[in-house]
């Protein structure tokens, strides 16, 4: 199967600072991938490059064989680490917004998931708790029928019940023809839902491996192995 995301010698510098340096990687459809690295390792930069929010300084990044642009945005569903939706928007307005913007948005699916959580469609973003905000935005992003889901820190700073809901939503929306990339440093929480992990540090890919391969070969969890590799 051909890669949904491919990076060849991908580099990105901000001024003189190299955020990504010669990254090569390939992600196949049907995989749930953890993009794991300490703060400032280049996770968000990589995700923003895949979104076309940043342009590479060197090398290339391809989404289903194409450079990021209008065509790839139609198949990439992105959950940013910080929201871009304004506080005054109600759930209904957000649904309308996604409906207008994305041809692959399945409104009934989103409505059904919101209903399960008893979230009132008249509620405004500004009225929601942090956990509810995260849940609503994840529902919107996962209700698209995309080829690549990019979730930047989806479980950062939420309570365990919200975290379980988020992981459950990712599992239930699993689609063998799409890939999901979850960037996080909370590895223990996501480990069981991942097929493979990418360790990134100081803009370099340190490792790309299947979760069960790490457990089999190292005799320890990915979380424990990560702590070993990134020991300060």
């Amino acid at each position, binding site marked *: 199967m051909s890669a949904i995301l491919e990076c060849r010698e991908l580099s990105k510098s901000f001024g003189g600072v190299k955020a990504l340096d010669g990254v090569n990687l390939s992600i196949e459809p049907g*995989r*749930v991938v953890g993009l794991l690295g300490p703060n400032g390792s280049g996770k968000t930069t990589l995700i923003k490059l895949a979104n076309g929010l940043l342009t590479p300084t060197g090398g290339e990044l391809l989404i289903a064989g194409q450079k990021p642009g209008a065509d790839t945005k139609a198949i990439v569903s992105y959950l940013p680490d910080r929201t871009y939706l304004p506080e005054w928007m109600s759930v209904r307005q957000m649904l309308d917004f996604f409906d207008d913007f994305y041809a692959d948005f399945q409104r009934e699916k989103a409505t059904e998931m919101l209903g399960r959580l008893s979230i009132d469609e008249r509620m405004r973003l500004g009225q929601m708790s942090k956990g509810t905000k995260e849940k609503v935005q994840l529902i919107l992003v996962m209700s698209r029928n995309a080829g690549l889901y990019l979730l930047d820190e989806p479980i950062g700073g939420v309570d365990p019940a919200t975290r379980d809901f988020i992981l459950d939503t990712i*599992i239930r929306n699993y689609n063998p023809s799409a890939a999901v990339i979850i960037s996080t440093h909370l590895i223990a929480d996501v480990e*069981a839902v991942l097929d493979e992990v990418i360790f990134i540090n100081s803009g370099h890919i340190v490792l790309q491996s299947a979760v069960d391969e790490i*457990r089999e070969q190292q005799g320890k969890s990915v979380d*424990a192995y990560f702590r070993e590799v990134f020991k300060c």
Partner: protein
Amino acid sequence: MNRNFRSDLPIYTQLVGQMEQDIASGAMPPGARLPSVRDLAAELGVNPNTVQRALQELERAGLIYTQRTSGRFVTEDTAAIARCKQALGESQIKEFLAAMTLLGYRRQDIIALLREEKEEES
């Protein structure tokens, strides 16, 4: 089934172990229909491909079978289930004996202790 996995073993091996246990004990009786991969994955909180891999392993071992249109079922081959139970039992005993040997017990002492235990029970 339990959602807590050991950290030093692949998750799919642990799923296989849990399901073998459930089939051997009859918690999942012969001919019972298994939930879909997606439902099992959600219930267990694990990746669907991991569930798929565990099910393939059980299928290879002849403990479950797939019916093209209607899903996966526990085998009705009770001899196969009995063999699985026997193997699980034997490995439990081996583990137990290894732990007792480590404590310094000899075979005859262990047997004597087991007899005592049995008398207390009855």
